[in-house]
């Protein structure tokens, strides 16, 4: 069996995190759109959020005292793993509805899988989350499978 992923860590698979609530704000869309070099007016004026806007909007906002030496807050929804450095892995997104200022959204994340792989520079653990975003009224907005790589 796996050497790096403990049975305790493995028991997290299938677990669901606390729902995150976010109210979409026009100026946040505008900042995101400028910094990602959007070209369409509807994004640059904040009328509609670009496809990956929620990646930022759903990031944890933690007090400075809770940020680690790498700058990141400790993710409470991550089992204890022997590899500590985080890299972006990729994503699979299915869009059901566009996002606009004033939208009140609820995001729920579950831990879908932990996969050990051998990278060119050493072992890696792929942490796979399923994310489901709905409006507070229950309308489905986005389904996403996110992969984070620990090295």
């Amino acid at each position: 069996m796996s050497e790096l992923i403990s049975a305790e860590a493995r028991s997290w698979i299938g677990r669901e995190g606390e729902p995150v609530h976010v109210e979409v704000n026009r100026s946040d869309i505008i900042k995101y759109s400028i910094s990602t070099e959007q070209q369409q007016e509807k994004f640059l004026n904040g009328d509609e959020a670009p496809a990956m806007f929620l990646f930022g909007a759903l990031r944890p906002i933690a007090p400075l005292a809770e940020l680690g030496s790498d700058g990141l807050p400790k993710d409470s929804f991550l089992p204890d793993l022997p590899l500590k450095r985080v890299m972006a892995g990729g994503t699979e997104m299915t869009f059901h509805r566009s996002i606009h200022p004033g939208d009140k959204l609820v995001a729920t994340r579950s831990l879908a899988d932990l996969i050990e792989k051998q990278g060119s520079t050493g072992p890696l653990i792929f942490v796979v989350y399923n994310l489901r975003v709905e409006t507070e009224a229950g309308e489905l907005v986005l389904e996403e499978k996110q992969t984070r790589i620990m090295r």
Partner: protein
Amino acid sequence: MSSLDISKLSVGEALPERQHTATNVSLFCYNAAIWNPHRIHYDEPYTTNVEKHPGVVIDGPLQGDWLNQVVVNWMGDNGTLVQFNYSNRRASYIGETLTSGGTITAIDTDVSTVDMDVFIKNENGDVITPGTARVKFA
């Protein structure tokens, strides 16, 4: 935005390419906008000495955003993005100019969908972030 006619598209057709050159300023703005305090995106001594990267790291999800813009900027208001996948295969560092682009891989006129492969290439021409997208025409 110009109008696209699904019946006039063909498999193998290329989408417009675009270049992106991240700077310290653009990466600062992006990481502030997404509230990402990870030091590998703005603190060069930390990034090279502690996390052992050769330089300040261009965020993987920023490349993901540039990738989906290949599709949504080509499509404009002619349709909507329904699916989008990518994987960050290799890291990229500040100073590199990246090129985004894509190719049509399938067209289904019955349900008005078009599938595409999209890519981010580095200056050596290596695809560092491949992806796929599906759009549905209105």
